[in-house]
């Protein structure tokens, strides 16, 4: 039997072994239990016996047995090697998370069990597959740390999230927890769990394989959803384990372990941030480049000046992100500013981010164009059009449906006129959609550029049409109406930029106008997921 020294503290139990090779013994032991489990009952035993008592060495084995019988806590998280590294740490064995046993049996973080269960099931045919499936729906059970902290709990406690460079575990944990939540929303977590339950019960039907095609489809979908769920659970698991480790290390005054865990937490924060971005930007067209169009609202020069500021803000934002920006079309105002502008933003995920900016942007300030120094409110409308790449189907444009006009041409033309103005406007007669380009130095290139804009506009129109037909997608981002006021920029009497959709606000308007828009975009994109989530819970 294992030589384990149980060290008890007031809050949790830890297992300490004087012998590094315990880890291998432990694995072998666990495996042997699994084999024993093969023929044992599938009905869950009551975990209460473990809930209220601290664990003694002798209790460990019964716990493991219960766990395996229960199949209720297989949250695969740590890789074996990682686990081993824990075990080998300074010749001690420190099994994080065992304290959970005290309170929440279902949430036990046994790092090894599921792996073994998995490998057994994959080797042992249908019977095990079914068994494996039957607990999958219960994967959703809340994971927590030894003192009962869950991912949702971390988010709810609103720990301050500070810069990655600061070694603050709470900040890292809060950032990770937030990212996990976003990833879950994107996966439509609740829906996913319900669906998994349905699939599991389907897989458990004895006559499933009478229709092999159907069975294959079910098990494929089940496998894919399980994969997604496991990935998220793994993140949750890892986060909670790190937290346990840090708390434990603090109690043990072990700075090395603490800093190691902190480092791991930071790495995790960076990794999951990427996952989160992937989750936020997983729309069909999100990877595309795009056009951003800014149009001055009513209000003359003041609004036109605002429209120019907005256009500049997007140019700076795009440059910050390393995108290439070109001005396709720009119509200057009579005195200052612009009546409208179209810029092309070239780079991966440009559309995914920029689509969050569609709507009306409002400015409040003392107008520099008002000699009376009065406060003015101006508006600028922003539209974003994805540029569908080669992989997408495009609307076919008939040459005969186009009317191409020279822009601002005057007089006899031809040899009579020398001008560097060669702007072209293309009208798609059946839809009335137009596109103008005047930025290029030749008419031919202006026309080609305007054709690209026209193509993207028609593609977007078609997307909107299809989405309207497909009721499921009516709330899609591409559908946001042009007329909605989305953000206010106040320069006077106080200074603030506030997003009216998310209530996200910043007190430094200059930084926003200099292109620091990512946080606005991301907060909107995740808020959009929230809405999705709510809709799902209503429909459930």
């Amino acid at each position: 039997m294992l030589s384990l020294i149980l060290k008890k503290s007031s809050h949790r139990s830890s297992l300490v072994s004087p012998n590094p090779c315990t880890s291998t013994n432990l694995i072998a032991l666990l495996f042997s239990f699994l084999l024993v489990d093969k023929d044992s009952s599938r009905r869950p035993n009551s975990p209460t016996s473990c809930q209220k008592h601290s664990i003694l060495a002798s209790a460990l084995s019964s716990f493991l047995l219960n766990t395996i019988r229960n199949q209720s806590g297989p949250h695969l998280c740590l890789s074996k090697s990682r686990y081993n590294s824990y075990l080998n740490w300074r010749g001690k064995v420190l099994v994080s998370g065992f304290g959970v046993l005290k309170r929440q049996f279902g949430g036990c973080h046994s790092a090894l069990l599921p792996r073994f269960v998995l490998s057994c099931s994959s080797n042992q045919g249908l019977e095990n597959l079914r068994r494996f499936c039957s607990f999958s729906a219960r994967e959703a059970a809340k994971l927590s740390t030894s003192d009962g902290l869950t991912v949702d709990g971390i988010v709810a406690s609103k720990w301050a999230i500070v810069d990655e460079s600061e070694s603050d575990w709470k900040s890292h944990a809060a950032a990770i927890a937030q990212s996990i939540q976003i990833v879950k929303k994107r996966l439509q977590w609740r829906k996913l769990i319900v669906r998994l339950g349905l699939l599991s019960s389907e897989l458990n039907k004895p006559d499933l394989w009478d229709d092999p095609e159907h069975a294959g489809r079910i098990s494929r979908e089940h496998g894919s959803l399980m994969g997604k769920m496991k990935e998220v659970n793994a993140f949750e698991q890892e986060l909670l384990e790190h937290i346990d480790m840090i708390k434990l290390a603090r109690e043990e005054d072990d700075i090395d372990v603490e800093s190691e865990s902190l480092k791991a937490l930071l790495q995790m924060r960076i990794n999951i941030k990427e996952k989160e971005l992937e989750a936020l930007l997983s729309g069909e067209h999100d990877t595309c480049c795009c056009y951003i169009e800014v149009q001055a609202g009513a209000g003359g020069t003041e609004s036109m000046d605002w429209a120019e500021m907005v256009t500049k803000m997007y140019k700076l934002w795009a440059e910050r992100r390393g995108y290439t920006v070109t001005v396709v079309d720009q119509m200057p105002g009579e005195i200052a500013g612009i009546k409208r502008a179209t810029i092309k933003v070239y780079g991966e995920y440009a559309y995914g981010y920029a689509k969050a900016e569609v709507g009306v942007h409002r400015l409040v300030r003392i107008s520099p164009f008002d000699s009376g120094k009065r406060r003015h409110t101006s508006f600028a409308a922003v539209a974003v059009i994805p540029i569908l790449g080669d992989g997408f189907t495009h609307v076919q444009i008939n040459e005969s449906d186009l009317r191409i006009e020279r822009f601002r041409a005057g007089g006899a033309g031809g040899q009579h006129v020398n001008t560097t103005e060669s702007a072209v406007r293309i009208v798609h007669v059946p839809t009335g959609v137009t596109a103008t380009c005047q930025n290029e130095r030749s008419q031919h290139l202006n026309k080609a550029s305007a054709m690209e804009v026209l193509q993207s506009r028609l593609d977007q129109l078609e997307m909107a049409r299809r989405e309207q037909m497909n009721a499921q997608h009516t709330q899609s981002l591409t559908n946001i109406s042009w007329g909605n006021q989305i953000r206010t920029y106040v320069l006077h009497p106080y200074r603030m930029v506030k997003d009216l959709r998310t209530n996200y606000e910043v007190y430094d308007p200059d930084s926003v106008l200099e292109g620091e828009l990512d946080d606005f975009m991301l907060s909107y994109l995740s808020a959009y997921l929230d809405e999705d989530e709510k809709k799902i819970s209503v429909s459930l």
Partner: protein
Amino acid sequence: MKLGLTRACFGCRPICYTTSLPSSTLNKPQIPIFLRPPAYSATSLDLRKWHEWAKGLAVSVGSSFADADNGPDTNLLCRELNWLLQDSLEDPKHDIRQSNESLMLRTSLDDLYHLWKQRIEQRRPFQYIVGCEHWRDLVLSVQEGVLIPRPETELIVDMAFDEISKNESLGQGLWADMGTGSGALAIGIGRTLGTRGRVIATDLSPVAVSVTTYNVSRYGLQDVIEVKQGSWFEPLKGFEGKFAGIVSNPPYIPSEHIPKLQAEVGRHEPTLALDGGVGGMDYLIHLCSGAATMLRGGGFFMFETNGEEQCKLIIDFMKNELAGRFCNLNAVPDFSDIQRFVTGVRR
């Protein structure tokens, strides 16, 4: 041929010789600014100063040029100013708003002051200032003595392309660009032809011949385009009935309009390339007759005109004076909806 000789009065003496290349060093073409080596250094502060000064000049123009003769307004001049800056910078994308750093220019700062003064005070065309015109997907070198190709003329290449895609044999045949100027049409069409297609570009002006030769070599089309100096069809003797296509943007402005032209055009561009005689039809009629002789059966022609009136006259002329020689005669509008081109096919 009489009309052709009238036009040939370049420097008051008829030029009847034909050469394929100018040998005189007098006609060495100017290099556009953007192709010159970045040999001049300046600080971005000085460049910003110049830019501010130049912008001030452009702003002072307001709409006065536009009101006077449909010339450029402040907006257009500001855009030209930015293009001049781009062409002059070693890295056109360089942002001169950055702090005071040293950068390399393709022309001296003094020249930039000088050039912009010419642009505003003398109304020297922007294209002559930078030495090039962006035309279709080409950047063509231009200089005084050569007509700056117009946006309208781009459409001739589109139409030629359409004809060639309808009838492949046209693309393998011989084409002529009469009065080629900077070589725009010859190069535009030369790039759409098939492997066996060739273009002969002619011009009376030795400057035009040297500029075209330079532009042709810039686009590596020496094997496709032959540049010949001479009046209209004279350099093409011996090619009668051989051409698959003939294109031209000949001088078509009626002489009586020449004094009232926009300053950039009237004061700076070569009258030789603009003045079409009384009524403006002298060379167009000559080209029509020539096309009847030079085109092969099924050969295609496209000429640019002054507008609806000239188009009508040409079509009438061909229907009556050259009855039975042409079919599919059409007047084609430009993007301003002015009947700009006449096209037809040799029977």
